[in-house]
């Protein structure tokens, strides 16, 4: 069930109404059933995997609490790690590694007989396995106490707003909220609905309209030349931002209506003035997860310089692989790792230029440019397609800008350019003045009505999944 689907239009109000009508002691079980129904609507069999992951980590954490020392705790931690990462490996990475081992062995004339698995990738598996792993690791490290109530813990794992595409919540932030009794709060509901509206606008109006041009070019890269490839890449930068941050906004809005606070996942990432700053603003829940559970355990920056660079690079390499079982994602991660290493190498020398205002603006543009280069690999269907897109930049044809994609797409192209411009201006205003646009009450209602119809008229309503569902 997608957020932008007819089924959800019926599902969500029903959940909210019943939730607030129920006595507090039944709410968690009701939300859990609703979340399982939400997840099972993709494929019933997937439910068994999330229940397996839930039970493994629930019992591992309880056993860890009973252990007197870390050595004893470790075996339960390893059990949880192997179960969750094993699940991820089997469904997501097995065929990728099998294929690459096959190619390697073929090159030295050894025949690999291991068959490929014909398994569908369960939706959200990368998200909920990481969420449960953070819980068991935190219990192991003593940062959080294990949850004794299995219903509450199962709800933490499968809470439907953030189940399939995050934000990846930490147990110490989300679990305690399930023990609180929230009453119906009209202000929270209004705030949640506004956030959902903004999320739907970004997804249905901006991201899905941009997708038309991105798919055109990236699905047939050799048919297009420089300008078209550049525009498609630029469009993809905003498509993935609006798609993913739109989903996060909807998830946070839904949770807010129910009374829960989810963490902010995006903070205007394209206004970042460095790659480090970009990762403090983009997919915050994932970048902090990798920082806390991969980068810092490796030593972080508390090691010698070259080990520090290795830690940075390796963390991003793994982050790339998390996104998908394809070399394009590995290269994407490696590029970000490389950028960060280079940035750190020159950071001391660059500090003296921090006071020059126009240089800060140039840094924002430069950061955006190098991030866009990595998006080529992220979006391309294969490494060779990515290089085709990059090499297209040398091929320019004399085409009028508005007819770049043919006369039939003039209107859509103009709309997309207008939407991106409006989004960038809005985010710059919000960032610079640090406040939202405030309307008087007389303007608010017509504005909200106009906003709803802007989504309805300009939105694309064909079944477009959220990009991050494939991870």
């Amino acid at each position, binding site marked *: 069930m997608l957020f932008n689907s007819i089924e959800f239009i019926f599902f969500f109000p029903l959940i909210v109404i019943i939730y607030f009508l129920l006595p507090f002691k039944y709410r968690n079980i009701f939300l859990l059933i609703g979340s399982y129904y939400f997840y099972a609507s993709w494929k019933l069999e997937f439910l068994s995997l999330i229940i397996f992951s839930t039970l493994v980590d629930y019992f591992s954490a309880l056993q860890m609490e009973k252990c007197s020392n870390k050595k004893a705790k470790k075996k339960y931690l390893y059990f949880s790690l192997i179960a969750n990462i094993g699940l991820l490996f089997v469904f997501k990475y097995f065929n990728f590694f099998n294929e690459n081992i096959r190619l390697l062995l073929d090159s030295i004339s050894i025949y690999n007989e291991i068959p490929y698995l014909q398994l569908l990738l369960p939706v959200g598996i990368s998200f909920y396995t990481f969420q449960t792993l953070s819980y068991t690791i935190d219990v192991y490290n003593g940062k959080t106490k294990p949850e004794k109530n299995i219903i509450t813990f199962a709800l933490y794992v499968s809470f439907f707003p953030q189940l399939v595409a995050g934000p990846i919540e930490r147990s110490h932030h989300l679990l305690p909220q399930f023990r609180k009794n929230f009453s119906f709060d009209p202000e929270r509901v209004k705030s949640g609905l506004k956030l959902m509206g903004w999320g739907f606008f970004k997804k249905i109006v901006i991201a899905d309209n941009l997708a038309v041009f991105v798919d055109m070019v990236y699905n047939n890269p050799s048919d297009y030349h420089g300008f078209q490839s550049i525009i498609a890449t630029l469009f993809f930068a905003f498509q993935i931002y609006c798609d993913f941050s739109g989903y996060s906004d909807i998830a946070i809005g839904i949770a807010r209506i129910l009374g829960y606070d989810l963490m902010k996942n995006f903070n205007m990432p394209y206004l970042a003035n460095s790659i480090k700053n970009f990762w403090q603003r983009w997919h915050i829940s994932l970048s902090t997860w990798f920082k806390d559970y991969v980068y810092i355990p490796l030593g972080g920056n508390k090691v010698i310089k070259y080990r520090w660079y290795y830690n940075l690079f390796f963390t991003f390499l793994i982050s790339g692989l998390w996104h998908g079982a394809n070399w394009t994602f590995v290269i994407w991660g490696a590029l970000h790792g490389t950028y960060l290493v280079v940035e750190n190498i020159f950071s001391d020398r660059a500090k003296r230029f921090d006071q020059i205002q126009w240089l800060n603006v140039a840094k924002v543009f430069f950061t955006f440019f190098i991030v866009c280069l990595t998006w080529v690999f992220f979006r391309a269907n294969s490494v060779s397609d990515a290089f085709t897109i990059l090499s297209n930049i040398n091929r320019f044809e004399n085409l009028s800008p508005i007819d770049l994609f043919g006369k039939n797409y003039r209107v859509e192209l103009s709309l997309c350019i207008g939407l991106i411009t409006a989004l960038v201006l809005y985010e710059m205003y919000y960032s610079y003045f640090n406040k939202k646009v405030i309307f008087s009450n007389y303007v608010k209602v017509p504005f909200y009505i106009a906003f709803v119809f802007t989504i*309805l008229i300009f939105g694309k*309503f064909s079944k477009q999944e959220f990009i991050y569902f494939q991870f």
Partner: protein
Amino acid sequence: MKKFLITGFVFGLSIVLVNCFLHYFYVKHLMRETILFKKEAEYQQNKDSIKILFLGDSHVETGFNPFSLKNSFNYSSAGESYILTYFKLKHLLKNKNSSLQTIVLPLDLHSFSPFRIDNINNDAYWVNLADYFEIGGVRDNRLFFATKYFSGRFAAYIGNFKEIYLALKEKNSPNKEKKSVMGFTPRQGSLLKSNRVEEISNRVNYHFFDSTYLDPTLLTYFQKTLQLCMKKRLNVILIKYPVTKEYFETATGKIEISNYDRKIEQIIEPYKNSLIIIDYQKYYFKNSDYFLDADHLNEKGAQIFSEELYQNFKELRANYVKSDLPSGKRSVQN
């Protein structure tokens, strides 16, 4: 809470009222400027004199000029699958005083490919003709088609900003050119030489995106269309419209043409004495300047093709008495 509910009610009511206004304005004023509705109006104006009706998709829409054939009308539309053609014809034949004698249908390589089967554009138009609930049942996608039905009936403007923009532009244009004459929508332009191969290859990949080129639902509705014509004692002519040589060769490389022909033969077998097939696919292989793109004729090509069609129809008509059904199946290869 009470204030919240009242605010919510007022907001919801405002949404409903604005929706009704927008839907009414879209259907009654803006959609009148679109080809589909203009063609409908033109058909209604001339229906008493129309004896030969051309139905089908853009191959027909851009390919046949009724000027060449007296008492004919081109009632095709871009993207029209056999599901929609069936419902359109069924709707037209509800009129007991219909003057129709002959129906001309397409029999192209892509006619039964599922690439557009669920893509019904312009719900505001089709919702009056097609049974969306039947289609939903047949496609096993009831919720999707039910949504399309209700949006076509009550909120047709949803997701149609481009149509709104183009209709407003047309409405406010001082020079309103007549885009269609007796349903014919000519297209200017020709296939570019520079990216010809890529364009044709993309077109074939679009039409035959997977191995299914004989979708069971489309074949069923093709059969239902033939049955409807036979029931109403209408003549049926099946035409394979001209395509470029590269398109034909690429497409026949993707599909098993013998299997295609066998399946079609199976379906038309009960009616073989009552219909005619005319194959023009290879007719203009040497005349790529007649084509707008891989598989559509441009205005020049359409003019020449229409004349050719007229000549063939004259020959066919000479062989039997006007009001009788044609006797014997004829497959005229050119």
